């Protein structure tokens, strides 16, 4: 066994916590290694020193204070009632989600839809507008005869 492997075994050896096989291995190493032997003895000495520290007694009011803390605890509801009543945090989050959903719904109302049946009316209205231009109806013949000519500029008329 190497000195490095001893590191994880030496304290257990000192405490008497090693199994028979491991203990024999450690003891064999200690016979040959003065440094580890010294360390084992010093670890044992440290353990003995730690034992010298006195224990302290809890104060006389210790138990009374524990009892007071427990008495101040809110009583638990019976299980079926607790099941019916949601926890305050869950209830709060659920309410928040509901409000957010309603608010978002009101903010993102769909744009008014144009019914397809309206479209022909618009087209017809254009035709009506165009046909209502008296000068245009006068020039319709000339336009069809001469395709290369630009449409003469016309001032829009008031309906």
């Amino acid at each position, binding site marked *: 066994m190497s000195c490095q492997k001893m590191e994880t075994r030496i304290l257990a050896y000192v405490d008497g916590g090693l199994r028979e096989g491991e203990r024999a291995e450690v003891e064999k190493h200690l016979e040959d290694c003065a440094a580890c032997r010294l360390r084992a003895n010093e670890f044992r000495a440290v353990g003995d020193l*730690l034992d010298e520290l006195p224990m302290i*007694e809890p104060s006389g009011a210790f138990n009374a204070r524990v009892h007071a*803390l427990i008495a101040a605890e809110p009583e638990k509801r019976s299980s079926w009632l607790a099941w019916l009543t949601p926890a305050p945090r869950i209830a709060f989050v659920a309410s928040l989600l509901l409000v957010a959903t309603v608010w978002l719904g009101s903010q993102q109302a769909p744009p008014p839809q144009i019914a397809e049946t309206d479209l022909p009316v618009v087209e017809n209205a254009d035709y009506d507008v165009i046909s209502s231009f008296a000068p245009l109806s006068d020039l319709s013949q000339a336009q069809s005869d001469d395709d290369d000519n630009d449409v003469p500029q016309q001032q829009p008329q008031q309906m």
Partner: protein
Amino acid sequence: MTTTRSDVQLMLDVKAGDQQSFELLLQRYRMPLVNFLYRMVRSREQAEDLAQEVFLRVYRAREDYEPSAKFTTWLFRIATNLALNSLRDHRYQKLEISMDAPIVADAEDGDERPMEVADEHPDIEQHLVEEARKKMIRHAIEKLPEKQRAAVLLHKYQELDYSEISKILRCSESALKSLLFRAYETLRVELAPLVASSVKH
């Protein structure tokens, strides 16, 4: 014939609504908990507050208690977490204070007087030597990094096995062994004068 109920049995009885079993657990563990926490946080008052908090948490958790681990593993895990959190908070507090106010005096040994009676030591000089020795040991433990300190205290004073301590500290057993090795290496250096005299004898 009286039989001693196991911790797990007591806790299961507490779960079933038996207050008397809680009292027995309180009686059984108040001393180990207060001493463990005292050596962790270095203040008697704070150690008692934390130990009371441990019992409160045990009581609160009674209805959900399942004996999946040893009771002491669960109990000391709560205590260790509370101690480490308290040390962390205390460190921040100290930092804030040190930025505002000058440090007046070193209050390290403020309330750390062990319960001993001077009459037991007629030889005052001998008594002072013993006190200095204990102070040195206490300081050596206090100087250990928090996790190493917890490992040493749980191993040495609570006599928990490696498997339990590793569960409490949430590390592997090999990591724990290495943690303890480093802690003992530090302790044997810090306590060198005492160690040397005891090895010679």
